[in-house]
């Protein structure tokens, strides 16, 4: 059995999905968290559950909404599980009525009962169910309350809608529905009434679908005749508005009968909003939040933890491997491979896990609390001035964790040009994989101002993105329309457990990558550094790695780090940014206790170190990001562009910083 979850954005569909299937998909308190179809298996194995992006109607505006409509037209499911936000019934029912017209078995999960109760809304569930003619189960997806009952109902009850044609659209529209149905009868498996109404509403995807099965001229004749008639008789604005109003009548009737609203209490949410979206405090509060994040990650908590982990790895763990290798009489080759390749490479990356955790914890906090949409609101003015809109800031913030989901999140941006622009610029956001490089270099060169220096890099990424947005949007990506309407969800107190889970889920990716990709990469890099034209176990300066790096090194000299070592690590950084650190640990391997940090001072000046960090920040989207850009834009041209412009900007900025710094007497 296949069951699809469908409902308005931010109503808790994914929370319920996770609860019913035991998986962990991305949950967050803003609209547009889920942007693609996800499939899971029910815990008790009764079938597949499909999670979809949230939509307000079946008539899509943005790419993520299009996913739902095309799912509806092209795939078949056995049942629809419609999730409603009980505290926003009127708005949610608009979609429900459309689903009922689709004439597939529907079942309603009435979510957020707790929120509704707090607002003084009481819903008579059995009344509600009989009015709609489908089963309704109250649930609290966050805590799992009512989920068992829901599964029961899904797997047992017949959910054939009891009432057909819940909305009566008036005799003119009904007559037109019949004549349009005649045109397409027998040519499609979908509900004819559903297709007709969607067509009248101006649903582009349905229109295209109908044009493939029947003559478009006849259809548009019916459409315009109906519109003219309504215009004459009722002075209606447009056909779609007329349909909307008819639905609204029905909805108001249902809500009046099934729900009572008692006294209104001012939610805490609005009090918090007075502060965080305050006229003057909005942006400073956001910057404060960022600063706090970096202080915790790089100064107060993260660095001490990483140092402790580092001591553990270089001391006892390496010691353990050493003695184990000696006991089994491993050959010198194996010994070097494990100690100088794997332990140095993989270990060098794992050391940064505490910092990664703190970073992800903060991002999860941002996502779960409801602050995310507020940041978008606060930033809109700035974003508008560079030809983007506030919503584009959400993919960028997510990009701080990892650029790949950031780019995916751009799907919620309605206008194609703004979406493309956001996709192109999100890689400039400093993702968590770049963080180890900063941690290493600020530790070695800027120990006194760790947080400040790192903050400057993140801000630089944002500023460069904004400037480029301005340039691109006034040259190659001119767009006339810009749309910004954003839903601001109520604040929700993040629960520790869900915060922990989403932090873990993100950080897990980092650890997994260290165990697989970086592991294999470390072996490969080490081999390249171990072998050379002169055979095996050559001096590293005569290894293959040095030869490869040496080709590019001269190009890097003007920006402060023209060594083959830097060049080699930058090349591996394209595969995954973490491998920059893994490579450096292998290249600069020191058998004794003196750390990589201390050693770096021989190869970089502080100015060159800063220039290096800026270069790492901007120089190229990693392989996974590049693949995602290609997938999302569907264009080779834009994918190549995203790589080339980044290289160019990185080089120019590093050049300015390094040469400019030298002019001012910095070293």
């Amino acid at each position: 059995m296949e069951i699809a979850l469908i409902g308005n954005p931010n109503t808790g569909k994914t929370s319920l999905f996770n609860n019913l299937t035991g998986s962990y998909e991305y949950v967050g308190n803003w609209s547009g968290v889920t942007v693609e179809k996800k499939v899971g298996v029910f815990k008790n194995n009764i079938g597949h559950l499909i999670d979809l992006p949230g939509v307000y109607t079946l008539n899509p505006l943005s790419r993520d909404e299009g996913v739902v409509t095309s799912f509806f037209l092209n795939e078949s499911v056995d049942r629809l599980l419609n999730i409603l936000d009980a505290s926003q019934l009127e708005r949610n029912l608009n979609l429900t009525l459309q689903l009922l017209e689709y004439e597939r078995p529907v079942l309603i999960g009435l979510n957020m009962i707790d929120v509704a109760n707090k607002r003084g809304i009481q819903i008579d569930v059995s009344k509600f169910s009989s009015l709609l003619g489908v089963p309704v189960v109250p649930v609290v997806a966050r805590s799992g309350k009512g989920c068992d009952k829901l599964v029961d109902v899904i797997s047992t009850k017949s959910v054939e809608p009891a009432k057909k044609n819940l909305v009566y659209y008036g005799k003119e529209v009904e007559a037109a529905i019949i004549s349009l149905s005649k045109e397409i009868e027998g040519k499609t498996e979908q509900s004819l009434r559903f297709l007709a109404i969607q067509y009248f509403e101006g649903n582009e995807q349905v229109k295209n679908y109908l044009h493939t099965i029947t003559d478009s001229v006849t259809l548009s004749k019916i459409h315009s005749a109906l519109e003219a008639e309504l215009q004459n008789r009722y002075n209606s604005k447009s056909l779609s508005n007329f349909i909307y109003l008819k639905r609204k009548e029905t909805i108001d009737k249902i809500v009046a009968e099934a729900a009572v609203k008692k006294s209104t209490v001012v939610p805490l949410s609005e009090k918090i909003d007075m502060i965080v979206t305050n006229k003057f405090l909005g942006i400073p509060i956001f910057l404060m939040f960022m600063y706090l994040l970096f202080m915790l990650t790089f100064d107060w908590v993260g660095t001490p933890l990483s140092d402790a982990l580092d001591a553990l790895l270089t001391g006892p763990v390496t010691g353990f491997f050493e003695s184990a290798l000696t006991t089994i009489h491993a050959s010198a080759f194996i010994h070097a491979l494990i100690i100088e390749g794997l332990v140095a490479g993989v270990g060098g990356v794992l050391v940064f896990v505490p910092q990664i955790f703190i970073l992800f914890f903060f991002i999860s906090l941002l996502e779960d609390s409801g602050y995310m949409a507020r940041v978008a609101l606060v930033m809109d003015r700035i974003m508008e001035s560079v030809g983007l809109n506030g919503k584009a800031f959400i993919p960028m913030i997510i990009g701080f964790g990892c650029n790949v989901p950031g780019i995916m999140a751009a799907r919620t941006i309605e206008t194609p040009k703004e979406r493309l622009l956001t996709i192109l610029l999100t890689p400039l956001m400093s993702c968590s994989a770049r963080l180890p490089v900063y941690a290493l270099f600020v530790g070695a060169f800027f120990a006194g101002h760790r947080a400040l220096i790192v903050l400057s890099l993140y801000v630089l990424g944002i500023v460069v993105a904004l400037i480029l947005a301005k340039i691109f949007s006034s040259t190659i990506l001119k767009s006339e329309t810009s749309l910004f309407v954003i839903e601001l969800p109520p604040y929700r107190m993040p629960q520790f457990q869900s915060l922990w889970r989403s932090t873990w889920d993100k950080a897990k990716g980092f650890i997994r990558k260290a165990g697989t990709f970086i592991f294999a990469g470390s072996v490969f890099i080490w081999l390249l550094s171990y072998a050379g034209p002169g055979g095996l176990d050559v001096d590293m300066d005569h290894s293959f790695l040095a030869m490869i790096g040496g080709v590019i090194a001269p190009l890097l000299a003007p920006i402060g780090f023209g060594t083959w070592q830097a060049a080699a690590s930058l090349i591996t950084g394209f595969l995954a940014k973490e491998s920059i650190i893994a490579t450096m640990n292998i290249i600069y391997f020191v058998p004794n206790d003196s750390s990589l940090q201390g050693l770096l001072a021989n190869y970089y000046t502080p100015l060159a170190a800063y220039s290096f960090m800026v270069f790492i920040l901007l120089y190229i989207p990693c392989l996974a990001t590049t693949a995602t850009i290609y997938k999302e834009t569907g264009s080779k041209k834009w994918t190549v562009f995203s790589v080339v412009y980044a290289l160019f900007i990185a080089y120019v900025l590093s050049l300015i910083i390094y040469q400019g710094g030298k002019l001012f007497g910095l070293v």
Partner: protein
Amino acid sequence: MFTSFKAGEKGKIVDLSHVNHLVQRRLLDLGITEGTEVCVKCVMPFGGPIMIESCGQCIGIRRKEAVQMEVVKV
């Protein structure tokens, strides 16, 4: 007109027809149409967006779109 509203003031929407087509669609999705009562929650500085509330739902819209909405105070 919304721009003459101060934070906390309530109004009723009379006409949306001059607002950008896509914005109208989105507002409709969120249940805001002619006849809806809304309350201005806060106004961002430097011509930034404004935040309005209707039926317990807060929404951010741009100032230039808000200007085109016809609203009467209630």
